[in-house]
């Protein structure tokens, strides 16, 4: 009974992805035949070839990668410093206020912020830049700070006390002594930010306009509105777009799960 249920869940989870991969390996004609072919008669990488030659998907992929890595790394550093401070800060009322401020950010609908952000950035002539987009993404540090705090909570302060006695400054103690112990937390916070940033669509649509600045979600979005992009190429695009987050997830899975549950269950 248990085995059957486990298999059902497995099937439900992997079937959609498998079907998109199968679709991406078919040629255009076989996609539009009915009844469906469950295996392509001649598997081909043609759609991937078209994706990278006509659609310049390589460039979009590189843009997304640069933005996501930069933003996630920036958010990580700020979250680690802030989370450490929050974990060690001892004034109870202040601490509650700070946490309230952090949790409030999780309630605000992201779309309410988009127009004001756009207006601010265009007043400063800072729109349509991948660097600015990365900076805007990197500013989402609330959840990372909460996650970092809960990781530091589990490390006894006596460790950095010892470092301070040896003559380190607080920041030195953080980076030389504490961080090596917190590696799982670092992986979790980075992966979590990376996944969220890589997947973000609407802000990117709003802030970017030129062809050379397209990121992956924006490219997929323009595929569906563009006539002439068929489902084999679109499927290939989807498969490629999912790869980075799947890789990040499978590498950091253990830590992400620990981070998610620590971050929001215990706060």
């Amino acid at each position: 009974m248990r085995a059957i249920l486990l298999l059902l869940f497995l099937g439900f989870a992997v079937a959609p992805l498998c079907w998109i991969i199968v679709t991406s390996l078919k040629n255009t004609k076989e996609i539009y035949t009915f009844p469906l072919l469950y295996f392509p008669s001649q598997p081909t990488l043609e759609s991937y070839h078209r994706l990278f030659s006509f659609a310049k998907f390589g460039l979009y992929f590189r843009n997304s990668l640069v933005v996501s890595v930069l933003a996630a790394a920036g958010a990580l550093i700020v979250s680690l410093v802030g989370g450490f401070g929050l974990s060690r800060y001892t004034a109870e009322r202040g601490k509650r206020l700070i946490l309230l401020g952090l949790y409030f950010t999780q309630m605000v609908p992201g779309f309410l912020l988009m127009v004001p952000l756009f207006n601010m950035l265009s007043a400063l002539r800072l729109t349509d830049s991948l660097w600015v987009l990365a900076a805007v993404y990197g500013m989402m540090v609330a959840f990372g700070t909460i996650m970092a705090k809960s990781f530091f909570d589990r490390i006894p302060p006596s460790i950095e006390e010892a470092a301070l006695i040896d003559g380190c400054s607080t920041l030195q103690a953080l980076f030389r002594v504490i961080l090596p112990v917190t590696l799982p937390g670092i992986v979790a916070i980075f992966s979590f930010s990376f996944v969220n940033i890589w997947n973000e669509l609407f802000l990117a649509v709003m802030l970017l306009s030129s062809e050379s600045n397209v990121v992956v979600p924006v490219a997929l979005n323009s595929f569906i509105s563009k006539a002439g992009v068929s489902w084999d190429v679109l499927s290939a695009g989807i498969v490629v777009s999912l790869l980075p987050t799947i890789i990040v997830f499978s590498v950091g899975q253990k830590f992400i799960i620990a981070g998610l549950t620590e971050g929001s269950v215990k706060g």
Partner: protein
Amino acid sequence: MSQMLRVDEGKAGVDHGRRVWNGFGRPIGRNTVFLWMLVPVFVLLGLRIYVPVLQGIVLAFRQYNMLNLSNTGFNGLANFSAVILDVHVSFLRILLNTFVWVAASLVFQFVLGFTLALLIRSPFPGRGLYASFVFYAWSLSGFAIGLIWAWLFNGQFGVANDVLLRAGLIERPIGFLSDPRFAMMSVIVANVWYGVPFFAIMLLAALQSVPRELYESAEVEGAGQVRQLFSITIPYVMPTIVSTLLLRTMWIMNFPDIIYGMTSGGPVNTTTILAIQMINKIFQEYDYGQGSAIGVIIMGILFIYAFFYLKVSARWEVRL
């Protein structure tokens, strides 16, 4: 809340005794140093969230259409009344859609996620690998998931139709995304697929913290599996269930990505939820004032919801 706000007494004692020196030869407390470490966090959040959210609220009370910027003065509640009395889409319909979308997604995500967590709670060979295959959907983009399911539910070449036809359950293909009777169900299926892993991950961690002795003594008393589930397991993980449901409600309500990828709110607005209507206002009508008004409405609903939810669930010691 209580747990996260607990402060280690012994640590505090040490802190008061120790002083560090800033560059000006004046001693400052350790706590001040820790507070300064939070300054970057709040400067960034201020620029990214606190200031924009205030501006967004102000915008909701101004006439602000990008196609007609000649007059951007305050117009009172005109944006709200324009949204609520919209002749093209009934606002009541949108509210109802939003409710169905949130409630149905939540119920199925929770029931399936909890079942999955119970199934993989005790170890079996290859559990780690199994977990990565059932949990990976959590890391995918909502928009891409929308596209994937749009293809699975395609009215002509969708695999869902093919399977049902071959099984003899239907006689001709169903337009899952073009038929108003099936569209909402289809987007909810996709959202459930996406959300099950999150619930399973959160609940699995909580399940593993249930002390074994509780079950042992229950077995001694002769309580069966079902009894144990309802009298030990569920009460024990209740705080996690309550806080996860609250968190998810907020996210699902603010999450138009899947619907946007599948139906964009159609057919005839049967899948238009508040967040989709907001996107339409901003990206199609360029009416930022009305878009912001919808944002304020969403935020208002969420605040009221969270307030009552936390009041009602206070007895389960929710730790947010």
